[in-house]
C-alpha cells in the first residue's frame, strides 16, 4: 500500500506581485493510481498548485518531486521528458481547446512535441485514445465550437491522455458542465484511472464531486494546507474547523463569521511564516482559542486509532496540538 509517491510537494511557496502569497509552505504527496481531491474556496491557491506542479509558474521556495526527481528548477529540455508523464485538464473546455485548430491537430500536437512517433503511430494512438474517451473518429476534422461542452471536455481529456501520462491534474474539470454531463465525465475519469492506473490530482470546490472521486482529501485556505486525510476520514470526522465549515456550506449552513470573507475590503494575505504569525483561519473560526490569534499552529498527525491506514489524518490546528 505504501509505495513511493508519484508526486511529492515539499514546503512549496509561491508569491505573486508585491507580497501576495498564493501558496504558503504546502506539502503533500500522491501515490500512483490514487486520487487526491484538493478542496477550498476560490482564491485558496488550488489552481496555483496545479500550475506550480505543471511548472507554468515558478516556485519561490520548496520542492516538487516527480517520481523522485526534483523538477522544481529543471531546464526546458529536461522538462519535456517529464511533461509527457504529467498532463492537465482545465475547467472550461471551450476555452482550453484552440478554436482555429481541428480536433486532429489538437490531438497531434502533444504527440509531435513530446514524443518521437511516426505519422502512422500517431494515427493509431489518436484512434485508440478517442475510443478510450468514448468519441468517434468523425470528430477529427471538426472544430471545437461544433461540439457540446461534454464532448469538448472529452476531447480535452483525450489530449491529456494521449502521451500516456502517469499523473493527470483536473483543475475544476467538471465545474462548467451540466449535472448529467458532469456525472458522465466523472465516470470516465474513474474508469480511466482503473484501466490505466493514472493518478489524479482533482481540484474542485464542490464537495459532492470530491466525495465521488477522491481517495484522499486536502483542504486549502488562503494558500495554506489545513487538513489532509483519507476521504472517508475527512467526510466522516473532519478535524479542522474549516473542513467542518466546508461541509456545512454544502448544506447551505454558513456561520455569519464567514460573511467577513465576502464583505470586508480585500487586504493582502498574510506573509509566510515567522514569529507573530497567526492561524490563517482564526478570524472566521467558530472554535477559536486565544492562542490562535498570535501563534501559527503546527501541522500534526492525529493519533492513529490502531487501523494503520497508510495516510495519517493531518491537520494544522491548535485544537489538535497535544
Amino acid at each position: 500500500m505504501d509505495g513511493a509517491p508519484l508526486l511529492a510537494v515539499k514546503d512549496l511557496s509561491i508569491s505573486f506581485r508585491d507580497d501576495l502569497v498564493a501558496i504558503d509552505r504546502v506539502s503533500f504527496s500522491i501515490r500512483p493510481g490514487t486520487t487526491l481531491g484538493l478542496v477550498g474556496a476560490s482564491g485558496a491557491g488550488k489552481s496555483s498548485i496545479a500550475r506550480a506542479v505543471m511548472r507554468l509558474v515558478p516556485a519561490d521556495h520548496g520542492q516538487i518531486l516527480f517520481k523522485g526527481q526534483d523538477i522544481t528548477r529543471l531546464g526546458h529540455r529536461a522538462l519535456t521528458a517529464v511533461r509527457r508523464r504529467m498532463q492537465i485538464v482545465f475547467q472550461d473546455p471551450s476555452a482550453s481547446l484552440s478554436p482555429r485548430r481541428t480536433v486532429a491537430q489538437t490531438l497531434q500536437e502533444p504527440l509531435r512535441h513530446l514524443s518521437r512517433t511516426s505519422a502512422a503511430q500517431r494515427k493509431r494512438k489518436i484512434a485508440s485514445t478517442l475510443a478510450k474517451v468514448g468519441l468517434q473518429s468523425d470528430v477529427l476534422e471538426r472544430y471545437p465550437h461544433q461540439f457540446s461542452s461534454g464532448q469538448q471536455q472529452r476531447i480535452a481529456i483525450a489530449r491529456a491522455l494521449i502521451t500516456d501520462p502517469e499523473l493527470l491534474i483536473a483543475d475544476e474539470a467538471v465545474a462548467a458542465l451540466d449535472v448529467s454531463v458532469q456525472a458522465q465525465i466523472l465516470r470516465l475519469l474513474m474508469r480511466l484511472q482503473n484501466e490505466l492506473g493514472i493518478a489524479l490530482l482533482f481540484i474542485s470546490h464542490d464537495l459532492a464531486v470530491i466525495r465521488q472521486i477522491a481517495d484522499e482529501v486536502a483542504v486549502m485556505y488562503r494558500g495554506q494546507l489545513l487538513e489532509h486525510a483519507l476521504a472517508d476520514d475527512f467526510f466522516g470526522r473532519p478535524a479542522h474547523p474549516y473542513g467542518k465549515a466546508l461541509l456545512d456550506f454544502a448544506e447551505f449552513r454558513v456561520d455569519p463569521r464567514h460573511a467577513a470573507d465576502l464583505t470586508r475590503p480585500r487586504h493582502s494575505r498574510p506573509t509566510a511564516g515567522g514569529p507573530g504569525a497567526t492561524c490563517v483561519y482564526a478570524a472566521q473560526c467558530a472554535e477559536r482559542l486565544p492562542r490562535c490569534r498570535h501563534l501559527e499552529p503546527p501541522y500534526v498527525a492525529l493519533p492513529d486509532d490502531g487501523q494503520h491506514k497508510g495516510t495519517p489524518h493531518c491537520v494544522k490546528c491548535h485544537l489538535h496540538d497535544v
Partner: protein
Amino acid sequence: MTGTAWQRLRDNGPGIAGLCIVLVFALVAVCAWSGLLGQGWAQVTGGRWESAGPDHWFGTNLLGQDILARTLQGAANAIETGLIVTVFSIFLGAALGALSGWSGRGWPDELVLWIAGVLDSIPFYLFAAAVAYALQGHEWSMHVAMIVTFWTTTARIVRGEVMRIKSREFVEAARAMGLNGFTIVLRHVLPNTLHILVVQATITFVAAIKTEVILSFLGLGVKDGVSWGLMLAESSQEVLAGHFGNFLAASISLFLLLMGFNLLADALQDALDTGKVIR
C-alpha cells in the same frame, strides 16, 4: 467557421455589391497586366481633347492620349499599389504587433511601441518626400513610404488582440505542453486574429489608393506610368479649359473602387464578427 461567415456575407446585399465591384476592377487589372487591355495609354492616338466617340470611348487628354486606356491602366496601378502596400504592411504589422503583445510590457513591447509612436508623429507627406529623396526618386519610394507608416495601425490592433488571447486557457494548455512562445504565437494566437487582419487589410487597401492619389498629385507618386492620381493632376489644368473627360474618368473610377471596398469591408466585419451570436 468560414462557412457561417460566408453565409452571412452572402446575405449582405451591399457587401456583395462591393465584392462584385472589387472583382470587376481586379479583373481589369489582370487584363491590363497581361497585355489585354489599356495598352495604348502612352501613345498619342488622337487629337487633343477629342470628345467621347467611337475611336476613343472616353475621349482624349491634353496630349491626345486615349483616356479609356489610361483609366484601365490606372486601375491596374491602383490595384497593384494597394496589394503591395497591404500585403507588406499587414505582414509587418502583424509580426511586430504579435511580438509586442506577447512580450507583455517587456522591452520588445516598449521598443515597438516607441518606434510606432515616432513614425506616427511624422507628418506623412513630409516623410514620403524624404523617402523619395533618399531613394532618389526610385519608383518604389512611394510604396516604401506607405508600408513603413501603415504598419503601425495593424500592429496596435494585433498587439491588443494578442494580449487578450494570451491569457486564454488554450494558450495555457499549449504552454503546459512545453511549446515555446514563437510556436504558440504562430500556431495558436495569430490564427485567432485573422478576422481582424482581413478587415484591416481592406481598410489599408483603401488608404493606400487614396494616398497614392495625393502623392501623385504632389509629384511624389507614380512617375513613369499612369495612375488616377496623375490623371487628376493633369486634369486640374484641363478643367480650367472646360475639358472634363480626364477628371471624370479618374474620379468616378476612384469613387467606385473605394466605395466597393468600403462596402466589402463593412460586410466582412459583420460576417466575421464572432461576438454576435444569439443563442
